């Protein structure tokens, strides 16, 4: 069959893509922290499911976890609808409470069972290939391959079918209501998809990497494009890339695989934060610096233009006195004057400043920049 290393990478890529799809909508709806809340509260669902069926491998646990995941969102929304607290606070009260109840239940009643918080929260992808699927005694690949493939398919179908509706609900919920479909239904459908994805993924990669995969790549893609479809595609690509590089890094350094993948997700995100064209930190700072310079050039030129050929020109427009009139530092005056002279917009003769643009050119400079 496939070799285990390839299998791990394939599972990581499939999961990264499956997580990225609903993640895009969470980022755009400003609900990113819901992932953090759900990854914690599903523990309660698992514990309750375990108490009901007393079997750690039962699908009831998965079902319980998914239901609790959606419930987390529902209860926080009920709380914030009372208007006694804002949405963030509601989430911040609900999920630690659910999590605490789960931890209390585990430590009090399930001490003997092999149900510990570590295995749920931390997850280890390295063990994924040992969990095989066999049909009639024939090994048909790691179980993780099937769950992650199924998740990806489910999420793609969901987004494919409801693309228009999701788009409308995100960007104009009021219009959606007017047209006649309820944003609430789409919202809870999305939350169910998120919850299923988190529950199915955490077994393989642990809750931390689920958050990283769900929010990191869409956040990165958000810095690169304005188009929703592109954002989804970019997120899937970035997630897969981070999964593969993260795996190689983990092998090379011999450290936790999900941990290293999350670090790569963060690294790629920081690259985009710094260097994304137009929206990155560097281009933003460059743009602001350029705007500041243009503003100063304009202010100085305008001042010169106003006082040229007036009685006060030799007081207002002399290089040694203009600093006082504009209330700027002399060094700033020298710098701006030098840049204007270089552009041919200003001349200096005997210390006097002369504007080289006529009124219409000055206006063009004002409105084009």
């Amino acid at each position, binding site marked *: 069959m496939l070799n285990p290393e390839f299998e791990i990478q394939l599972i990581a890529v499939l999961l990264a893509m499956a997580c990225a799809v609903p993640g895009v909508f969470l*980022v755009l709806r*400003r*609900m*990113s*922290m819901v*992932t*953090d809340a759900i990854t*914690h509260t599903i523990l309660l669902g698992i514990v309750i499911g375990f108490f009901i069926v007393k079997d750690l491998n039962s699908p009831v646990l998965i079902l319980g976890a998914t239901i609790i995941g959606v419930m987390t969102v529902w209860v926080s929304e009920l*709380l914030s609808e*009372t208007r*006694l*607290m*804002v949405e*963030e*606070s509601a*989430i*911040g*009260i609900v999920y*630690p*409470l659910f*999590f*605490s109840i789960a*931890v*209390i239940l585990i*430590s*009090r009643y399930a001490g003997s069972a092999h149900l510990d918080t*570590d295995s749920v*929260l*931390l997850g280890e992808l390295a063990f994924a290939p040992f969990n095989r699927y066999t049909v009639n005694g024939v090994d048909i690949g790691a179980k993780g391959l099937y769950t992650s493939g199924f998740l990806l398919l489910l999420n793609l179908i969901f987004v494919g079918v409801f693309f228009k509706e999701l788009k409308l609900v995100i960007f104009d919920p009021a219009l959606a209501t007017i047209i006649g479909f309820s944003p609430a239904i789409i919202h809870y459908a999305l939350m169910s998809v998120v919850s299923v994805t988190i529950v199915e993924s955490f077994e393989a990669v*642990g809750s*931390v*990497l689920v*958050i*990283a995969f769900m*929010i*990191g790549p*869409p*956040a990165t893609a*958000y*810095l690169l494009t304005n188009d929703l479809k592109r954002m989804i595609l970019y997120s899937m690509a970035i997630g897969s890339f981070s999964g593969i590089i993260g795996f190689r890094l*983990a092998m090379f*350094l*011999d*450290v*936790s695989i*999900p*941990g*290293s*993948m*999350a*670090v790569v*997700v*963060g690294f790629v*995100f920081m690259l985009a*934060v710094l260097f*994304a064209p137009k*929206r990155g*930190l560097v281009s*933003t*700072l460059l743009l602001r610096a350029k705007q500041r310079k243009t503003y100063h050039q304009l202010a100085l030129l305008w001042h010169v233009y106003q006082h040229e050929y007036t009685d006060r020109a030799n007081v207002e427009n002399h290089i040694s006195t203009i600093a006082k009139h504009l209330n700027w530092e002399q060094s700033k005056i020298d710098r701006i004057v030098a840049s204007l002279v270089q552009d041919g917009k200003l001349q200096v003769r005997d210390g006097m400043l002369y504007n080289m643009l006529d009124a219409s050119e000055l206006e063009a400079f004002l409105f084009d920049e």
Partner: protein
Amino acid sequence: MKGIIELFSDYTFQIVALGTGLLGVVSGVLGTFTVLRRQSLLGDGISHAALPGVVIAFLLTGTKNTEVLLFGALIAGLIVSFLITLVTRYTRVKFDTALAVFLSVFFGLGLALLSYAQRHPNANQAGLSRFIYGQASTFLARDVWIVAIAGLFVLILVFLFWKELKVFTFDPTFAQSLGYSRTRLDMIMNLLLVVSIVIGLQAVGVILMSAMFIAPSVAARQWSKSLGGMVLLSAIFGAMSGVLGTLVSSAYANLPTGPVIVVCASIIAGISLLFAPGRGLVHSFYRRYKARKEMKGKQALNA
């Protein structure tokens, strides 16, 4: 009843309850500001980010000295709060998204480092993971001193910058027009938050620390309309949760302190939401019921 009195005179209980109570006061005070500034979940992000700081401090020094590890957590927390501010201020990425990304990435880094530390020769990393879940029951008098000193530092700073914090919380634009630097105030606020989270890690752990900020403040908001009143009440509720939680968890076997404290804080918040005069749910239901009855009476008269 006799059991409870005995418990109160128990030295270990006194130490742990003192520690968690003090912690409740500090997180209650700061939580008020974060909740009002709509940054309640920032505490969650910072507390997760503390993990790599703890592990790096351990790897660099090789000690499991609490002060050293907490110092590592402090540095990591400051770095992450700086990164979140940077990203939200200079790019289009929103606060919640930046928080979720850095939270998971830093925690992932912590896990990777922890797995590295496990292979570390001549070092036993056992005990580092207590920072993930917290173990208030292992509190020593020395740990309480750390909480007390750091907590006092936080409270004094809040007292000194009271006016600035107040104006920034309610009207940041007005504050800036008065000439206060937003960056500087953000930095002070983040420092306070990081310090109080770091001292809470030992007691309630990374995951539950954020609840200690939010639940007491939300409860206090229901009873008071003034900032001063809210801060005071929030501190009282925080202390109550800490002491009550410790009491309950030491009275029964197999009850972890951190989660019980969180449940206590949530119960206080729940009671406040239901029964606070004027604002509470019970009161507003009653008001609505009365209005409906009056309306019906009027309709009957008109008809």
